């Protein structure tokens, strides 16, 4: 008889919640307070994509009402907290009930924010439906389909932006996306060799979020629950479909870039993780390899 596995207890609802927490969640935990705060940040009130011009704040607020109902149906006490440039969901627990303990266990008990969370291992063992819901959770808080994200050939891309402090998530998210056949066009790590290859920008300007770049038509099978993000994605994906035929393959772990980059003085920066600190990289896949890429290790 098959043993019970944690992944057997995952549902689309739990997977989506875990995705949001992994992407932008923070845990506040002491004797009196047990909270998870999930931020939905936005820099400007309006967002444009193709012919669309949308009120971001309004769309987030309206879309979150559905998310709140979904979480409430799971028995979670949740409220929406609206401030100037951010809307947050605040999940509160009065006692350490089974839901709190289960979520805390899944997102690794000793970690407290999206800066160091990892993708829960049971997600990798779960069904495709749950994996997609998890990625939707991450995408709703960290994903953007902007006209300015287009590649030099004009092909529109969705960016999943992972905090630069977190070097665990990129290879894990890549593995997850590959397992559901979503090809990644490029990962632009927050590393000096990739972000400031000629050392012209200075001032640690390379230390910005890791960007997962995915062609919009490929990200459509994931999509967003936040309505303005989903509308922008579909608008840009339709443009891509009219202009591009060839699809890109999944990564096979090999690097085919031959261009040599100059040495950057910040390759030894103290904020870089031990796996890559002091090393020079000519291509993003070389960083993936050092970060325990599942295809190489």
């Amino acid at each position, binding site marked *: 008889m*098959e043993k019970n596995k944690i992944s057997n207890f995952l*549902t*689309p*609802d739990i997977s*989506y919640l875990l995705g949001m927490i992994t992407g932008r969640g923070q845990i506040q935990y002491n004797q009196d307070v047990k909270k998870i705060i999930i931020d939905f940040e936005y820099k400007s009130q309006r967002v444009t994509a193709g012919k669309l011009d949308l009120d971001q704040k309004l769309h987030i607020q309206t*879309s979150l009402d*559905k*998310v709140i*109902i*979904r979480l409430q149906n799971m028995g979670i006490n949740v409220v929406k907290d609206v401030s100037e440039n951010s809307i947050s969901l605040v999940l509160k627990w009065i006692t350490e009930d089974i839901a709190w303990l289960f979520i805390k266990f899944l997102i690794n008990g000793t970690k407290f924010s999206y800066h160091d969370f990892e993708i829960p291992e049971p997600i990798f063992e*779960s*069904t*495709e*439906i749950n994996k*997609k*819901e998890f990625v939707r959770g991450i995408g709703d808080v960290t994903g953007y389909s902007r006209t300015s994200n287009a590649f030099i050939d004009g092909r529109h891309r969705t960016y999943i932006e992972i905090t630069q402090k977190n070097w665990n998530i990129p290879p894990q998210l890549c593995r997850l996306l590959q397992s559901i056949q979503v090809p990644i066009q490029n990962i632009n790590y927050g590393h000096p060799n990739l972000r400031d290859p000629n050392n012209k920008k200075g001032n640690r300007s390379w230390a910005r979020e890791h960007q997962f770049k995915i062609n919009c038509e490929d990200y*459509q*099978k*994931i*999509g967003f*629950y936040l309505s303005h993000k*989903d*509308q922008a994605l*579909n608008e840009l994906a339709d443009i891509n479909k009219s202009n591009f035929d060839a699809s890109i393959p999944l990564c096979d772990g090999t690097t085919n870039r031959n261009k040599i980059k100059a040495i950057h003085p910040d390759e030894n920066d103290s904020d870089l993780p031990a796996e890559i600190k002091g090393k020079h990289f000519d291509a993003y896949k070389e960083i993936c390899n050092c970060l325990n890429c599942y295809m190489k290790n």
Partner: protein
Amino acid sequence: MFKLLYEELMYNNEIEIYPDLIVWLENRLKGDFGRKAKNINVLDTHDSDLSNFIIKLKYQRFFPDFTTYKIRQDITGFIEYEDKVELVFVEVKIGQLKLIDLSQLIGYSCIALPIFSILIAPEGMGSTLAKLLTSFNRKDILEFRPGRKIQVLKWDAKKQDIDFMNSIV
């Protein structure tokens, strides 16, 4: 509104939705039951009685009452184990889901007792059904036998997946 119009344009009638749903359901059933089941089949069953499909698949011994299954489900999932075969029903609608659609599926589900049934449309629930199931929280009517329920789902054609924000699973 934009999205709704687009989805309406993607499918002209119910039958055009079947192939996408068959792929999705087969994937879902394999994910949920594939480790224990011997075989999983999802078929377009809209044009013949369920009893005929049971004969075709040689499943008669698993369904003592199969001759009474004179019902036509749009799509049926067959999950075959060593000692039993379990069914999953799918009723597909091109417009908004109505109370009468749910009533029909409850009736069919009570006859052949699938492990669960799905009522699904790209437009999701109509206002009357949404009010009954969500505002008035009458989800009890979805349970046609203890532990056996009807799921009321919104199909997202672009994602080729369920819109879980607007579904009752």
